[in-house]
């Protein structure tokens, strides 16, 4: 481990990690270019470097891109990667209220904390983790997706329960478009462009970025430059990073809890950072005090910090199956595996035993990426946040252009662009009718994995649903999901009883 430290702290490597973080943040901010593309784009650049420096550069790029994704999710409601969706739930409303700098700072602090806690867990538990990552089967993943759905509770405020459920169902329906696990085309109507289904990016850009940008325009009065000038006038808050002590205190427990949950979810090859962020968001919302619950979805500190911490912890956790088993659990780790292989590192059970130096320097460089990101980005935040001070007449077309460009960069298909504009227009209608769009995206993301895992579980269990009670892991997770849904009800029941019996107080 000490040798690993030595390798990491040469001036060249420190420079590399800075360079990587900077490039990664920039790439990640462009919707459509997430960590996967960022790493894919950087691999040719690192060919000439020695493995350690190359690995460190990659780590910087990786964490930079993850943070860059959160930045665009917070500032312009454009989550370019699915792991950043939960970040925009509360990050964007907070930025919208004029606290963009604070939102970015909270994101930076909590992802740093998530990364740190995950690194500690990783070092402490490494010998056991490989076994944990293999302990989950399809039926357990299915139960976990159900658990993830409990996050929609956060969007079901007064009279909104039914609407949130309907939008989740709509998302689940959209997810069924394309080829299903048995190789059958569904709802493609012979259009080849639909064979692979709608892409996540298309839907998230259309329902989040596009619908929101247009909604803002709709509410503004045309040609009224004075009002615009006022709203764009330098706001002392926008670039401010200030988070008060009591706010830190309020977030401390949720962040540590989310980091631990996020880490273990990340360790599971079939789950990953997206699920982790949803789980953390749903869990913290349900565990929060009633007064804090009201804030969720409107710019809650906890609602922003929890998914950010979980997301980053899960990203660290996802290196466990990669490094200890050589199995890539996600697209990101798959591309990382490619990078490692090109440096001549073959991850697997032997790596940890036979080449501990390599193993530890990989882990240390990952952590170094995390630290540098915080050092590099905190001073930059005020400037990044000032993007929002751009006049609307510039900002809106630029947001629209970047959303379109992001979708194009993923598929290079102009059919997707047309589809996106249409979906965006429909999403705007729902936005106007006060239907929450977040559950739609959540349903869409979870939908595919839910059906895949359910059908796989049924095949494994020869068509029987017995896994729901016969497999303890599955049963426990399902019970937890039900518990999460019932918890608020139980609470209000208890509160009502207290009120009816004043003697107890």
């Amino acid at each position: 481990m000490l040798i690993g430290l030595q390798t990491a702290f040469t001036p060249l490597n420190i420079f590399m990690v800075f360079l990587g973080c900077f490039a990664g943040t920039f790439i990640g901010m462009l919707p459509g270019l997430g960590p996967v593309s960022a790493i894919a784009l950087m691999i040719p650049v690192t060919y000439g470097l020695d493995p350690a420096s190359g690995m460190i550069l990659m780590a910087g790029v990786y964490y930079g891109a993850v943070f860059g994704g959160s930045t665009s999710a917070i500032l312009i409601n454009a989550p370019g990667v699915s792991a950043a969706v939960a970040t925009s739930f509360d990050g964007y409303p907070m930025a919208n209220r004029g606290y963009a700098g604070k939102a970015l700072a909270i994101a930076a602090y909590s992802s740093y904390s998530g990364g740190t806690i995950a690194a500690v867990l990783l070092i402490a538990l490494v010998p056991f983790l490989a076994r944990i990552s293999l302990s989950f089967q399809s039926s357990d993943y299915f139960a976990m997706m159900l658990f993830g759905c409990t996050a929609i509770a956060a969007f079901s405020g007064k009279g909104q329960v039914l609407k949130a459920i309907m939008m989740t169902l709509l998302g689940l329906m959209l997810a069924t478009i394309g080829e299903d696990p048995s190789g059958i085309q569904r709802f493609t109507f012979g259009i080849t462009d639909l064979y692979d289904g709608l892409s996540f990016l298309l839907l998230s850009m259309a329902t989040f970025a596009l619908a929101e940008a247009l909604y803002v325009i709709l509410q503004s009065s045309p040609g009224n430059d004075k009002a615009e000038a006022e709203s764009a006038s330098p706001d002392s808050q926008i670039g401010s990073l200030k988070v008060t002590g009591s706010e830190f205190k309020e977030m401390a427990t949720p962040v540590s809890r989310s980091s631990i949950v996020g880490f273990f979810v990340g360790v599971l090859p079939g789950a990953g950072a997206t699920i982790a962020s949803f789980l953390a968001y749903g869990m913290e919302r349900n565990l929060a005090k009633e007064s804090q619950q009201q804030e969720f979805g409107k710019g809650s500190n906890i609602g922003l910090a929890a998914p950010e911490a979980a997301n980053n912890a899960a990203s660290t956790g996802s290196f466990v199956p990669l490094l200890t088993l050589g199995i890539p659990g996600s697209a990101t780790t798959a591309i990382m595996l490619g990078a490692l292989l090109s440096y001549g590192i073959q991850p697997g059970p032997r790596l940890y035993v036979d080449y501990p130096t390599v193993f530890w320097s990989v882990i240390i460089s990952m952590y170094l990426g995390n630290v540098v990101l915080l050092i590099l980005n905190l001073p930059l935040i005020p400037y990044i946040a000032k993007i929002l001070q751009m006049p609307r007449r510039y900002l809106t077309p630029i947001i629209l252009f970047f959303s379109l460009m992001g979708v194009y960069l993923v598929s290079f298909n102009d059919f997707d662009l047309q589809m996106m504009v249409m979906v965006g227009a429909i999403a705007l209608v729902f936005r106007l009718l006060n239907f929450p769009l977040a559950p739609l995206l959540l349903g869409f993301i979870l939908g595919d994995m839910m059906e895949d895992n359910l059908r796989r579980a049924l095949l494994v269990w020869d068509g029987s649903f017995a896994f729901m009670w016969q497999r303890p892991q599955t049963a426990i997770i399902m019970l937890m999901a039900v518990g999460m849904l019932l918890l608020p009800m139980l609470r209000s029941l208890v509160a009502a009883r207290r009120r009816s019996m004043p003697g107890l107080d």
Partner: protein
Amino acid sequence: MCTDQAWSAARQGSRYPVGMTCRLSLILLFILSAAAPPAAAQRLHLVIPGGAGGGWDSTARGVGEALSRSGLIDVVSYENISGGSGSRAISHLIETAARQDNTLMISSSPIILSSLRGVFVQSFRDLTPVAAVVADYGAFAVRSDSPHRDWRSVVAAYEDDPRSVKFAGGSARGSMDHMVSALAIKASGADPRQLRYIPYNAGGQAIVGLLSGETQLLSTGFSEARALHEQGEIRILAITAPEPVAAAEAVPTLIEQGADMSFVNWRGFFAAPGFPEERAQYYVERLQQMFATEQWQTIRATRGWDDLFLSGNDFYQFLEQQEKDLDAVLIELGLKPAVASQ
């Protein structure tokens, strides 16, 4: 950050118009010069029918990297055209055939399957097959603590109860991993229609499925399973190569274990229809020269690929034979739509 930049540029623009105009004309000049393609011959444009980071993508970029770094071809550019399980790239190539004299498209065995299953209307016959460059073989593996020590014992267990050996694969039903399993079972004299195939989203996920104890057998590409086999996590029982491969000589082939079946998942290059003969010849030569380069040897070794060189008529006949084999098993499994539905 770039939006920030543009914003300050906007403000500067109104104040210092002259400087901006210069910059603008420079940019325009640059774009126009880049849009005009340099003289042909030393150029190769690779079309990839899937997204960045996938199997086609990494092969194409690996080949392109070897070609350009060994100086065989000056400029290699890449274009990802995903969609329609690869059919969008094919239609693009056909539609724009007139200006694709420097373009090759990467493809692999699934193109044959997709055509057969009617996923898309085109087949390899609509393109000009240029050359196959890489071979990957199917591999069947079990967990290292599995009671099965060879392929015969798997077949015996299968004949006893097909449910006791569920096959995990990294792609949907009716695609490569599934077909290879069915072909192997059929060649072993058992009924492939009883096959329990569990589809996963990717090869890595299928390996997890095997290791978590959910399935008993894994059907995947040899290159994907090799590393774990060497590290003792899984045991490859059989490989679908015609004879043992250099990377793992101890692994027996199916043929050696009494199942007369071999299957090559080739990866190769195609060109637009009506591709000039001398252009095809030029690229075939370059690709052939590439095999000897050190750069290619490194890339090939890290990915666990086997060299396979087929060009011209040989390649075409090879494709036809594979199409025939797959067609037979698709029909037997009842997976082929009866005479192209609709």
